[in-house]
């Protein structure tokens, strides 16, 4: 009897080991904090955090969002707020397929409303068996700050912004010469969105923690869940307060904007 049990046990442990190596360490609970992994071929890369949740290493890219949108029929040219000269215009015929400027597959997807961003997280959950959602505002701030107590994740000097993030810089000014706001005079290399790994990551290894596009969060505006917060500022934003770790803005959950995208969060198992 003991002999049989020990054989069964060793058989199980062999099976477990085979399972462990064949699936990779990613899908198991004991992933070390800081590890970068993904749950499927088309899934966004995730960075494991200390508390067992995993945050999207990058913003959701156009290629990743396209895989979802084409499978589930998310309209790509219905309507989206695009920047025209000095103002925002809710333009018909614009959408994630055509936000009004050129985008590569590795650029962040834009022009999805909060409902569509949430649907993407639900779709990932169904696909992988893990629980994906948008991060809350507090989670997003914590991941951006990465433990720092400075105003921006890189320190207190906003002058470094063009080396750290995609903001409204001289390239933006060239594309929108009539914009009367005080546009930054440094050069970040991009007028519109940039590839999601174009700028250096923050100390947690998170790319575009601020800049490039605003990121939808799972948090309602003052309890009003017809408006959701987004944070992180974007390629249209020159004002430094929005690049702070706790900088935020909000909009109605049914509206789409060519400067708003998102990243996902995977809950602890």
């Amino acid at each position, binding site marked *: 009897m003991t002999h049989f049990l020990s054989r069964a046990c060793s058989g199980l442990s062999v099976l477990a080991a085979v399972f462990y190596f064949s699936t990779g360490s990613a899908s198991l609970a004991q992933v070390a904090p800081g590890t970068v992994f993904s749950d499927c071929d088309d899934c966004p890369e995730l960075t494991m955090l200390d508390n067992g949740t995993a945050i999207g290493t990058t913003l959701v890219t156009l290629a990743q969002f396209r895989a979802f949108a084409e499978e589930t029929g998310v309209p790509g040219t219905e309507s989206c707020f695009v920047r025209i000269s000095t103002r925002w215009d809710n333009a018909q015929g614009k959408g994630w397929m055509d936000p009004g400027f050129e985008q590569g597959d590795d650029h962040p997807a834009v022009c999805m409303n909060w409902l569509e961003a949430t649907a993407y997280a639900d779709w990932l959950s169904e696909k992988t068996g893990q629980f994906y959602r948008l991060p809350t505002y507090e989670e997003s701030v914590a991941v951006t700050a990465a433990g720092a107590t400075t105003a921006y994740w890189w320190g207190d000097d906003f002058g470094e912004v063009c080396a750290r993030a995609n903001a409204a810089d001289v390239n933006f000014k060239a594309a929108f010469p009539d914009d009367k706001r005080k546009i930054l005079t440094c050069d970040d290399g991009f007028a519109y969105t940039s590839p999601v790994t174009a700028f250096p990551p923050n100390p947690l290894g998170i790319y575009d923690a601020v800049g490039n596009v605003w990121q939808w969060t799972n948090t*309602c505006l*003052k*309890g*009003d*869940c*017809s*408006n959701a917060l987004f944070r992180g500022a974007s390629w249209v934003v020159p004002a430094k307060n929005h690049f702070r770790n706790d900088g935020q803005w909000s909009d*109605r959950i*049914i509206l789409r904007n060519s400067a708003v995208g998102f990243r996902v969060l995977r809950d602890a198992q």
Partner: protein
Amino acid sequence: MRAFLLATVLAVLASFAHAQLLLPKPELRVEKDCEDCPEMVILPDGLYMSRAPVTVSEFRAFVEETGYKNTGWGCKWNFSGFEQGPRHPVTCVTFEGAELYARWLSQKTGKDYRIPTGEELTYAVRAATTTNYWWGQQVGRDRATCLGCGRALDAEGTTPVDTFEANPFNLLDALGNVWIWTTDCTSADCTERFLLSGGWSSPPSDLRMSKRIYNGVTVPFNTYGIRVVREFE
């Protein structure tokens, strides 16, 4: 035998009384204290409350007489960002603006108008029901204006205040269409106040009276509106 008959008759009478056959329903009375004043219903507890959210035309009378302007950030009472007729609820009025309107009504009529407390508004909207919405557990269709209330124009803007059936206390737009400012504060300094009852852009779950949102007293939104109350005199 006679005692038994008497008992039977009494029992039958009692059952009639139980069925409230003897008491007529209270009359639904609506009063107006001046030409441009909002219609007031008399709630069972004796408080007068505006039958509907204050409309654009009612608010216009106030603006024309007082020269009221909401300056600064945000939308304006006559520029909400979507089409509004005279019977639509006025939006983009700050809490401070709402108090000015109530004060103006008081001066005009000699009655003591004010903004309702959360408790007063909840009492009036629930109308003695205990379900999620005054009409039942489910949001259903064609009961109110919200995002997901089953209308073609969902989340496009406000609708006239008399679009839907009134609640049992005769309140129009008791839920949905616009959030209603209350005097309830989020903190002791009262820089922010609660709003109740859900708006045209709200998901149905926000139309339950257990849901509260809040904002600064100087902030206008095109999903916020007002009701007024006054005491019985």
